[in-house]
């Protein structure tokens, strides 16, 4: 809101017209009761697409469970894992899900601290995405273990056998960091939801009322409660940001700490964090479009907000591209022949198609978002966001697999490793699990933050009024 000092009436009208033409992030005339009604309505009567997505994801999840049970009973060998391809797509997809979990934090915590109020209608589902994708990522760690039933050996807990995990192993750091991040983001998600749960409680009946009453832990909306709520929420946001950065840096150390060509790169932690924010933003765009239609959120998830998201995604995609090029360049101009050979294998070997696809999808496709026509077009953004997510999944695939196929030891070079149906089934199942949980969440909990949207509307109207007063000739300061 730049203070307007022109008292030329015609000019002012022209400027006003320009402001009017520019679409607003949200309809500022919307009443608070209307907000409550719309959001609470999303808990009861979604469009039929909701049930299509829910049952499709449930089916995918069941298929994944079947594959996992088969693998659990028979052994990991059925998933076409072998020596030296010991990790396969499980770890690649694990990184993908960890990455997805970052943008919830970006939207809710970082933009909160930056006072970007357009995040308010969309941060809740982004946080839910964070939580559920972290849970999915955690599942992959378990699925990939040879002896799932002893996963707790990795966790540092005092025990009577005096046996500790190996603290020099990045996997232990992983377990600790993911556990901490998951706990904190669940608390953050839940805590930010309490005032809305109280609204749900006030409007619900029967067993749902009981449920929301328990969940809203006695929220009455007193000044005292609000004051404490604000401070705690801000503290949690400040706590969550370093956690988010640490989690993906630590996942990157899984690779950077190891000795293998193509992994042993010091630039991996920032590269992974950038990739995480990137894929997370793209996933938010996808879910934004789905939720907007499914739960009739057209008034809250508006085109201008989509456009801002697209701009954010584009900016992050350029950061990722830069770090990607830095990684290639440092290998190419470096003196490590093994790493260079691994890079050449990526670009020309068995997986060359995937590698080039990753670079094109990750670095070229985002340029579509430089066009306003694309940014404001929902089908186009849907396609672009899905392509970007495919590109980011391919990036993780290209980090993990080629290094196994073309490591240090020529005898173990394998040129033709591909995943089989069990692995793909588990991965499809993970998407089902995530979507199912996410859709359930949106059905049970308000996926648009009612109180924050009210705040947003309130503050915008106030800012507009303030600007209008400043524009008025009477309000002009006398000096200069």
């Amino acid at each position, binding site marked *: 809101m730049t203070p307007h000092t022109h008292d030329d009436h015609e000019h002012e009208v022209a400027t006003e017209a320009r402001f009017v033409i520019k679409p607003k992030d949200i309809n500022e005339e919307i009443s608070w009761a209307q907000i409550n009604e719309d959001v609470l309505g999303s808990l009861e009567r979604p469009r039929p697409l909701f049930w299509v997505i829910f049952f499709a994801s449930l089916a995918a999840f069941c298929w994944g469970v079947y594959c996992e049970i088969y693998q659990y009973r028979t*052994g990991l*060998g059925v998933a076409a*894992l072998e020596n030296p391809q010991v990790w396969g797509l499980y770890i690649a997809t694990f990184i993908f899900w960890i990455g997805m979990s970052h943008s919830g934090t970006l939207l809710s915590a970082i933009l909160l601290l930056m006072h970007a109020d357009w995040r308010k209608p969309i941060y809740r589902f982004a946080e839910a995405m964070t939580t559920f994708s972290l849970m999915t990522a955690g599942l992959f760690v378990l699925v990939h273990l040879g002896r799932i039933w002893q996963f707790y050996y*990795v966790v540092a807990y*005092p025990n009577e056998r005096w046996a500790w995990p190996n603290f020099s192993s990045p996997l232990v750091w992983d377990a600790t960091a993911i556990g901490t991040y998951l706990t904190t983001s669940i608390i953050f998600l839940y805590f930010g939801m309490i005032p809305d749960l109280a609204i749900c409680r006030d409007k619900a009946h029967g067993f749902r009322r009981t449920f929301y009453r328990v969940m809203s832990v006695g929220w009455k909306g007193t000044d005292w409660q609000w004051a404490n709520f604000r401070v705690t929420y801000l503290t949690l946001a400040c706590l969550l940001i370093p956690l988010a950065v640490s989690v993906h840096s630590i996942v990157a150390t899984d690779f950077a700490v190891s*000795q*293998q060509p193509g992994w042993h790169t010091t630039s991996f932690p920032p590269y992974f964090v950038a990739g995480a924010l990137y894929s997370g933003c793209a996933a938010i765009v996808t879910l934004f479009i789905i939720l907007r239609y499914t739960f009739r959120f057209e008034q809250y998830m508006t085109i201008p907000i989509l456009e801002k998201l697209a701009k954010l995604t584009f900016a992050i995609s350029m950061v990722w591209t830069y770090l990607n090029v830095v990684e290639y360049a440092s290998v190419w101009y470096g003196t490590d022949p093994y790493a260079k050979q691994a890079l050449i294998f990526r670009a020309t070997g068995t997986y060359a198609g995937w590698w080039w696809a990753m670079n094109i999808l990750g670095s070229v496709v985002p340029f579509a978002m430089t066009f306003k026509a694309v940014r404001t077009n929902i089908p186009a953004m849907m396609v672009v966001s899905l392509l970007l997510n495919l590109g980011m999944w391919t990036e993780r695939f290209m980090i993990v697999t080629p290094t196994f196929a073309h490591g240090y030891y020529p005898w173990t070079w394998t040129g033709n490793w591909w995943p089989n149906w069990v692995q793909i089934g588990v991965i499809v199942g993970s998407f089902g699990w995530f979507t199912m949980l996410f859709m359930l969440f949106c059905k049970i909990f308000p996926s648009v933050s009612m109180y924050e949207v009210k705040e947003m509307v309130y503050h915008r109207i106030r800012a507009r009024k303030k600007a209008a007063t400043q524009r008025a000739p009477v309000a002009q300061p006398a000096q200069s």
Partner: protein
Amino acid sequence: MSFDNMTSNWSKLRVRHPQPDQYKDAPYKWGMVIDLDACTGCNACTTACYAENNLPVVGKERFLGGQQMHWIRIERYWGEGTESTQEFPEQGAQFLPMMCQQCEAAPCEIVCPVGATHHTPDGLNSQVYNRCVGSRYCSANCPYKVRYFNWFDYPESAWPSPLEQQLNPDVTVRTKGVMEKCTFCVQRLTEAKSKARTEKRTVRDGEVLTACAQACPSSAIHFGNLADPSSQVAQMWKAQQVELSAYPQKKNEQEETERLGGQVELVPYPQNKSEQNVETEQLGESGEKLRGYRVLEDLRTYPSVVYLERIRSTEA
């Protein structure tokens, strides 16, 4: 209690291998020398290993799928040779037995989340099956890819009754989901050590052999105690001027430079004691060419296995 244990033993958890003279006062440091000139690629070592260590035979399909469990493998390389040197054609295949190199600075040890693979005081890189959760990080970080994972529950399929009667009772039959690898036949070492202890002595050279060394018909595999300076293996290491904790040697720099086209200047490694004298660097004390090397030495994993280069008759 366990906190105390961890904090009081913190320095032990942080031990770095190798340290200079680490095994000077230790009774044992098991090591190996493999003479590639003697290796005929007969696979007797592999067979002996299967019998000794209860390795499952996985069948052709799984073998081709990369799920084989051979702790020691014979790698066969066909040299194409170039017209100018005519180096390879008359020599045909070259063989290299590859097993766990029992690295002193093992990449697998630092990354195992549960400490299932760790260094023993004997200089072995041990694998604790009970502790292994099967994250396969060790295999991912192994430069030699000599770690084998139990992709299936082999006890049921590999030894149908009455074949389980032929299993070696001294060796655990591994369950599915754990990593395993060459142990230098640790069951034999333990037995020999325990026998020697009852007689109040250390294990004599040649008293204990790994199954592969025992089975090798051309005696290409030498096994012994490096901590004993008089053992055959220690003598061979010394003759080849390989030191356990030393950086790779620049042996025959002239030849290397020529091989790389005469333009490449080798990146100097930190000075080894033996490199101070250029005369003795190229030729051993007995006057023969030095041909000992360790695989992927420049990664500084400090393997306990020395390979002796094959002698090539380039004059033929």
